[in-house]
């Protein structure tokens, strides 16, 4: 088999101190091979993808030793723009990988940069669009697309440049299960047409049957290698001990009946009643739950397909949906939108949006008065972030930021905590810590989690609320 990419004894450290340094990595990827890189956050799998597409050393700075050769060219000596036609990249965040505003221009962007003649570019776009069956998405504004649709356009943009190698860095972090299925089909097509594919991923289940080889990384080294078949027959326990997410975890998810079900024994301590939970966008009924009771102190997973009304439900519950007429009855008091906003708190998927202060302790104290300082320290201690109290919240890791947001909600006396996809992009260890934390909140808060993470649900949820088409 011919070699598509080869790393020889590569050692790399980011000059900004970012995690994911490599030490002495040797890796040879054959042409036409589909390789999965997995491991905990910071194990260096993303760094390997950056070496292949040339972002290291051309964009991310650091000290590089050893040699990376891609398609016969030494990456260090090849300008990154010359690698562009050879390696196509798809990134994690659909919000930040588009240069253009409309979809057609976006797919054309790479080809235009290569200076291909207009007719050739149009021909390639048409072929890519037909291959991927995305005719519907042409000529649209990127800002009006869903996450899954954006990721398809990103794939199309890479594919139109006809690269030999595709590099995908956690492409499913922001996708729901339907979108993942569609992405899988796209990658399967690439594989069938003989392209080399390198994927760095946390979520593993969807790659079953797709990957020829699995590279398991730990602390910047390759510690184990598997054939695809051997890897996907590993038991859940083995994967857990390796710190990896399960591979069958997402099967069977969403097969339960709609409605609210208890999945664990739970001591009943009263209820939060939701009344008139219906909401329409214009003529479209996005949510039609009527009435519903959520047990106080429960941890409820809110499940459902894309467009089931999960996020509308969450926004209504937090008093954030304008024009929402329903109410919540808690402790015998009937609350309308504004009061709900006072008692509930949403931890957003991008938690960067909700950290405002200079230090962690100031952030936690934002909604509280100074007399609560002791309690604040106690809560930070409980959430395991006391040692960071004088750090800037933005300098923490994703999981830690989430904890800061939760701490501030607890101090502000919030009774209802809603989390939007709290574990997307978290590795097994971080997911487990989040689960443990959420489970420990039962005395203080009732928790709802909008999630598609079956492992998280299984670990910490007492109830499941399954929505479809805005109904139960």
């Amino acid at each position: 088999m011919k070699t598509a990419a080869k790393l020889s004894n590569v050692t790399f450290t980011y000059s900004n101190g970012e995690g994911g340094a490599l030490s002495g990595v040797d890796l040879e990827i054959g042409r036409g091979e589909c390789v999965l890189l997995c491991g905990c956050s910071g194990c260096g799998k993303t760094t390997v993808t950056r070496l292949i597409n040339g972002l290291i050393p051309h964009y991310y700075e650091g000290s590089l030793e050893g040699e990376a050769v891609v398609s016969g060219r030494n990456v260090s000596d090849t300008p990154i723009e010359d690698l562009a036609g050879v390696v196509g990249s798809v990134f994690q965040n659909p919000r930040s990988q588009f240069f253009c505003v409309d979809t057609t221009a976006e797919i054309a962007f790479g080809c235009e940069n290569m200076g291909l003649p207009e007719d050739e570019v149009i021909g390639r776009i048409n072929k890519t669009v037909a291959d991927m069956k995305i005719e519907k998405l042409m000529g649209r504004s990127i800002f009006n697309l869903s996450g899954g649709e954006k990721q398809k356009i990103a794939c199309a943009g890479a594919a139109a440049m006809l690269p030999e190698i595709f590099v995908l860095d956690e492409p499913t972090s922001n996708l729901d299960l339907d979108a993942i299925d569609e992405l899988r089909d796209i990658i399967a097509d690439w594989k069938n047409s003989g392209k080399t594919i390198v994927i760095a991923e946390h979520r593993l289940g969807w790659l079953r049957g797709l990957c020829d080889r699995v590279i398991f990384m730990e602390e910047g080294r390759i510690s184990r290698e598997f054939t695809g078949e051997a890897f996907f027959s590993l038991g859940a326990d083995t994967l857990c001990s390796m710190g990896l997410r399960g591979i069958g975890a997402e099967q069977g998810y969403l097969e339960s009946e709609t409605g609210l079900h208890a999945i664990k024994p739970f001591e009943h301590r009263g209820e939060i009643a939701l009344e008139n939970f219906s909401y329409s966008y214009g003529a479209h009924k996005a949510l039609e739950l009527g009435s519903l009771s959520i047990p106080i102190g429960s941890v409820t997973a809110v499940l459902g397909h894309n467009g089931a009304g999960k996020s509308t439900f969450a926004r209504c519950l937090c008093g954030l949906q304008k024009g929402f007429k329903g109410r919540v009855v808690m402790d015998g008091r009937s609350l309308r939108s504004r009061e709900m906003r006072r008692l509930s708190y949403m931890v957003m998927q991008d938690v960067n949006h909700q950290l405002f202060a200079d230090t962690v302790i100031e952030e936690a104290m934002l909604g509280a008065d100074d007399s609560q300082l002791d309690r604040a320290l106690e809560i930070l201690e409980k959430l395991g972030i006391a040692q960071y109290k004088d750090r800037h919240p933005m300098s923490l890791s994703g999981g830690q930021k989430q904890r800061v947001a939760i701490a501030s909600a607890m101090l502000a006396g919030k009774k209802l905590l809603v989390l939007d996809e709290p574990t997307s992009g978290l590795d097994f260890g971080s997911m487990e810590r989040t689960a443990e934390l959420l489970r420990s909140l039962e005395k203080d808060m009732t928790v709802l989690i909008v999630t598609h993470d079956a492992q998280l649900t299984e670990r910490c949820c007492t109830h499941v609320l399954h929505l479809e088409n805005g109904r139960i």
Partner: protein
Amino acid sequence: MTGIFTADAENRGLVLDPRTKLAVMITLVVFALGNTGSDIAAVRYATIALCALPMVLLFTAKKYKKSAAAGLIYGLMKAAEILLVPKASGAVLSLIGVCCLVFVRLLPGLIMGAYMLSATTVSEFIAAMHRMHVPVQITIPMSVMFRFFPTVLEEFSAINTAMKMREIRIGGRNSGKFIEYRLVPLMVCSVNIGGELSAAALTRGLGTKVKRTNICKIGFHIQDAAVLVLTAAPYVLWILGLTGVVK
């Protein structure tokens, strides 16, 4: 989200060359806002016809309500200007006068501006700038800016939502730091997105030495010709009026 230069192909209505739209805009400024040649009757009529154009364009873009509302307001105000203003005096005159001034002169330009932004894509805009020989040193930063605008707006609205939940608002106990609290997350998110955006653009060959091509085809069609005739009319009539051919 309907924002700046984020047109979808299906809802942009009559496709005009960006340069045609620019010509309409300039003419509206000269004749509707600047009131040029209003002493010549023919120019006044041509200006009214031109002022109706933005409403018609908006109508083709399926913004029926906006288009009808703007048309109605413009019609009423224009009628008031012609029928009431000559008869009114004192306070009534100033009130009606100011209203007419704002709506009759400003409204068509504003509607045209809104239409231009909502019905032009960034690629069309850039292609038009190229055709008008504007240097890339200006067009590339502008295209980045247009790309970034909606993103920053999205970030801003998410931050606003977060602030509502924390009860940070003007007049609250944190009002002193109101602006800081808003700007810090906005900067952090924008810098993150900017960094990732640059990385993504580099892997797609931005900055190669070869000359970039552009598949966005812009050009003048029959609809441009019709609009341009309407746009040229006030100028022609004005010149004819100045030379005394028409009144």
